[in-house]
């Protein structure tokens, strides 16, 4: 295929990298404002270049829409030749625009939110580094380079969750995220190795996405230890995606990741990084289209996570935890779309979710900022009057996530449900519908507890303009985002399309809107005048289980922390190391020598006559043996 070299492309990730270098090296000496402006403008420039590249891309004739930029050869060994090159097609374009655009707004917001923090320049350095790696991930031309970005964003996520590292709990939340991600990344890298191994056996050493999509059918029939190789690769890559995108069973790090600064939660743990898994699966759609069984796993896991996240989100009291579980649930939605083969719908929801979830998080950040660090929703309430702007933008995002037309969430969510329904999975579709209702409920609950009712805590102050203006822009995107025809733009990723009749389609739309409205109404109904308390009492056992997040953390703690620790302590340390190595081999050899010595020492009685007796006996024997020869 013909490629179009576009050398401006490399500056999309490299301007943020420069921002990182400047802020990382001399940021501490710069005044706070300047460090923030450097950090934000680096992302702003990157966003402008993304727009330029995008304009260049859509001016190309359809079917040739691909820009390339080759930097240098990374690995050259025999037939293997991997170059660092960037790849800008429709999918990358959408992702790059979302990432750099949302990042820019969040950077600007952060100038206000992080004002006065002693790690201000460090914060912007990390955030710039994150955007660099995220853009590398998005623009990567091959799986290997994507993996570099993948690991890089994981690192930045760790650094930013544990940003206030002096707090032990926050530092360990960072470690938890890093370690849980390691499990997924192990899956990713094993999948990569397996893929490259099988392709290498066929004599193919080109791993950029274009040649992969050509050559993947070659290994379609291969099996590995009796399992269909492509299925296995698909599952391993998906394991990587579950780690990064916080899907069951590896979602446990995301709620804890809320320990980081709120803009970080908005940028990394809602809008961009956690959706990397969806992006990666979409990027590899040519592989997944060959193995429908792997897609079924994705569908099931996505659906389960969507329901699980929404259920736990129902009862959380920490404003950020609600949003964290909501994120888990919404990404589950995206995986449902991917699992149904509607990759474009997944990316569409990724984009709209990036907008409205960023608003929700930043709005929550504004509330927390206004209340001087209070995160417990039970101590909020009645903030409507104090924080008009925040209330307005969060209201828009609330309607968007609840799936009320014509806000952004409605279009993407409806499209996902429709493609799941069309794919023939009625149960999954129904679970998705229930999740939609639950989503509407818990977000409404959040809004009600925070902005309506009486004041239960202190009064708040509205955040400065540097925070509210980015919120306003994102809120506009919450409205407008749904009208951007992403699915058409991403035609290639649309997947097999099942036709459903116009009547059914209208019915589905009606049902999903109804689910949203039902959720909202129910929330307003139940949060009034102690009805929630009564429900709590009637369903107390269910309530406890959900409140404790189904005890998943406890189960994991038991299975993966305590058991290995017990094993390491009792078996590896006490039995093997202390017992066999130290006790048996090290002390054992000494004890053998000691015991032999304690037997032999009895010979040295100290009695000279007994020595003489032995001596005489010896002499007699020598004489006997000498004389024997003569006799």
């Amino acid at each position: 295929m013909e490629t179009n070299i576009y050398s401006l492309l490399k500056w999309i990730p490299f301007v943020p990298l420069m921002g990182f270098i400047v802020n990382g090296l001399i940021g501490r000496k710069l005044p706070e404002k300047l460090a923030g402006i450097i950090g934000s403008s680096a992302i702003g420039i990157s966003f402008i270049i993304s727009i330029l590249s995008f304009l260049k891309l859509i001016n190309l004739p359809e079917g040739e829409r691909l820009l390339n930029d080759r930097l240098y050869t990374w690995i050259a060994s025999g037939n293997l030749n991997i170059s660092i090159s960037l790849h800008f097609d429709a999918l990358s374009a959408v992702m790059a625009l979302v990432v750099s655009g949302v990042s820019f707004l969040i950077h600007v917001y952060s100038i206000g939110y992080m004002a006065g923090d002693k790690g201000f320049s460090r914060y912007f350095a990390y955030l710039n580094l994150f955007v660099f790696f995220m853009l590398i991930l998005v623009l990567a031309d091959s799986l290997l380079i994507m993996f570099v970005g993948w690991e890089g964003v994981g690192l930045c996520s760790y650094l930013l969750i544990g940003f206030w590292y002096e707090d032990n709990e926050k530092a360990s939340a960072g470690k938890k995220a890093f370690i849980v991600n390691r499990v997924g990344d192990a899956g990713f890298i094993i999948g990569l190795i397996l893929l490259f191994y099988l392709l290498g056996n066929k004599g193919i050493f080109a791993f950029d996405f274009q040649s992969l999509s050509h050559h993947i059918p070659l290994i379609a029939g291969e099996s590995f230890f009796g399992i269909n190789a492509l299925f296995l690769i698909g599952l391993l890559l998906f394991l990587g995606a579950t780690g990064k995108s916080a899907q069951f069973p590896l979602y446990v790090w995301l709620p804890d990741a809320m320990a980081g600064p709120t803009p970080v939660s908005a940028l990394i743990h809602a809008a961009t990084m956690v959706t990397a898994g969806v992006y990666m699966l979409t990027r590899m759609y040519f592989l997944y289209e060959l193995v429908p069984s792997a897609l079924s796993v994705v569908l099931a896991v996505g659906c389960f996570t969507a329901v699980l996240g929404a259920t736990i989100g129902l009862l959380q009291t920490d404003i950020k935890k609600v949003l964290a579980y909501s994120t888990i649930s919404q990404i589950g939605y995206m995986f449902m779309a991917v699992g149904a083969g509607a990759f474009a719908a997944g990316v569409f929801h990724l984009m709209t979710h990036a907008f409205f979830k960023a608003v929700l998080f930043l709005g929550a950040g504004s509330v927390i900022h206004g209340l001087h660090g209070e995160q417990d929703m039970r101590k909020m309430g009645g903030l409507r009057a104090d924080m008009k702007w925040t209330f307005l933008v969060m209201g828009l995002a609330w309607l968007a996530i609840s799936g009320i037309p014509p806000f952004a969430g409605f279009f993407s969510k409806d499209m996902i449900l429709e493609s799941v329904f069309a794919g023939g999975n009625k149960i999954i579709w129904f679970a998705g519908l229930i999740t939609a209702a639950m989503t509407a409920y818990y977000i409404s609950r959040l809004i009600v507890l925070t902005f309506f009712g009486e004041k239960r805590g202190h009064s708040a102050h509205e955040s400065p303009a540097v925070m509210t203006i980015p919120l306003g822009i994102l809120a506009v995107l919450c409205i407008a985002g749904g009208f951007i025809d992403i699915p058409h733009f991403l035609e290639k990723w649309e997947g097999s399309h099942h036709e459903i009749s116009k009547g059914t389609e209208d019915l589905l739309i009606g049902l999903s809107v109804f689910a949203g409205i039902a959720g909202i109404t129910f929330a307003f109904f139940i949060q009034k005048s102690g009805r929630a308390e009564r429900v709590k009492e009637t369903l107390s056992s269910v309530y406890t289980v959900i409140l404790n997040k189904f005890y998943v953390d406890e189960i994991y703690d038991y299975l993966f922390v305590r058991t290995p620790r017990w094993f390491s302590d009792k078996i590896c340390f006490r039995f093997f190391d202390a017992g066999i190595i130290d006790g048996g081999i090290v002390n054992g050899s000494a004890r053998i020598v000691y015991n032999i010595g304690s037997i032999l020492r009895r010979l040295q009685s100290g009695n000279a006559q007994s020595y003489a007796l032995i001596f005489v006996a010896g002499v007699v024997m020598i004489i006997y043996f000498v004389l024997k020869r003569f006799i």
Partner: protein
Amino acid sequence: MLTQVPLFLSFVLFGIGVIGFLLRRNIIILLMFIELMLNAANLAFVSLSKTIGDMSGQVYVMFIFAIAAAEAGVGLAIAILIYRQLKTTDVDKINNLRG
């Protein structure tokens, strides 16, 4: 004169020396039995020297006398010191070097 007679006497004397050394307990007596064994050896030297007709055997006897005198001197000195330290001459009780 038959060579066997002094040799036999030497053998008997040596035997008495060994047995006495092994059986008695007094350290002074033990030194005396050591002298007995040395002199049994001297007797053997002398008689064999006479039989073979080589005088060097008798020269050795002179050496042995000198050494025996020195040995007795050192031995008695040790015996006295041991007695001063341990207030005993019984070798069964002198076992400070037991392992």
